[in-house]
């Protein structure tokens, strides 16, 4: 789990207000068990990242007996969102929860700025270059920044397809949005 205090001080300025609020909601939540359970829900297209890592999981609240899980969609038409909602349902039901609903929140709009450092590192280990400034896009295999764009849209809406000019390997780049 991401801990605000363990973030290197040089990176704190990069933490957006929205993400800081989200961290706080988790840390001060009365439903820590539910937050932790949902760490098991991964992006079906990028399995090393959970919906928490992605910034999709926004809040968990309770009104009377009903628990509301609030999520923010990544891309408008991302087919993974449907699967994510189904996976949340499965995980909660398996843990014995029955009285819950999943709410979608559009604003503030999802941004890749919400990806934590640890999530970025895992993306890279998985072979996907994490979101960068355009001129800093590097090859996840050999770290070369001598790369060329092949297609603005890769295997999914969130990724672009690049090729490394140094090692020739094609790679996915998680677009900054």
């Amino acid at each position, binding site marked *: 789990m991401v801990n605000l205090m363990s973030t290197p001080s040089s990176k704190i300025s990069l933490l957006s207000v929205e993400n800081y609020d989200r961290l706080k909601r988790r840390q001060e939540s009365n439903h820590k068990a539910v937050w932790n359970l949902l760490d098991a829900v991964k992006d079906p297209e990028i399995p090393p990242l959970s919906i928490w890592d992605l910034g999709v999981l926004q809040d968990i609240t309770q009104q009377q007996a009903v628990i509301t899980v609030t999520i923010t969609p990544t891309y*408008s*038409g991302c087919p993974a969102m449907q699967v994510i909602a189904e996976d949340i349902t499965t995980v909660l039901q398996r843990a014995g929860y029955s009285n819950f609903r999943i709410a979608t929140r*559009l604003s503030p709009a999802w941004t890749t700025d919400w990806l934590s450092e640890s999530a970025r590192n895992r993306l890279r280990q998985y072979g996907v270059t994490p979101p960068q400034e355009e001129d800093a896009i590097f090859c996840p295999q050999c770290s070369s920044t001598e790369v060329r764009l*092949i297609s603005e849209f890769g295997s999914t809406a969130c990724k672009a397809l690049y090729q490394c000019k140094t090692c020739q390997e094609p790679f996915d780049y998680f677009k900054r949005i």
Partner: protein
Amino acid sequence: MLIDKSQLKIFVLRLADDALVIAHRLSEWCSHGPSLEEDLALTNVALDYMGRARMFYGYAAEIAGDGSTEDTYAYDRDCRDFTNLLIHELPRGDFAFTMARQYLVDEFNLAYMELLQQSKDPTLAAIATKANKEGLYHLRRSRKWLLRLGDGTAESHNRLQQAMEDIWGYTTELFEMDELEQAIVEAGIGVNAIHLHPQWKQRVTATLTEATITVPSSDWAVTGGRKGIHTEALGHILSDMQFLQRAYPGQQW
């Protein structure tokens, strides 16, 4: 100035129909793209528009509060109930036609969504913010294709020039405003499309010039989409898209 719910619903459905119809046209390229990368790009853009359509339809259903759902609007309405701008429904044509249309629409949508982010209606503002982020990528891609096709081979140049000639008269409608949209603008909710025209024209002219394409003359225009008066093409889209729900009403996956 205040507007009532039914006016807002009509306005939201217009935006929804625009997105659904262009999404459908783009999705027709699935497995027919000129290359695998292009196939993926076209269908990814289609998905963005489909998602946009779903958000708008969902919001329209919420406003209506009469049990309608996004599916009711997509599957249970006939041609005359659809209020998309005609440019979106034109048959996909060849790749040059698809990219020409996409570029013209991308330029328009990006400017439109940028302003809609300021809407006093929080849901519309939120959808616009998402659409705007995605739209930047759409425009970057379609603009690059215009340059490549226009300044490419004689064949690609001619096809793109022809596509522009065939589409141009449908762009007039992008910048039309009726009484309803005027009221929506005055309520601080909508966007005055007329104001978008000068910048759109300037940007499009710059791109076409760079692509060595002649800007077509504006001596013809077809409008009517917002009134439900469509080209023949929309009926064909609906017969394809709505067939299953018409044959088996209420059927689900």
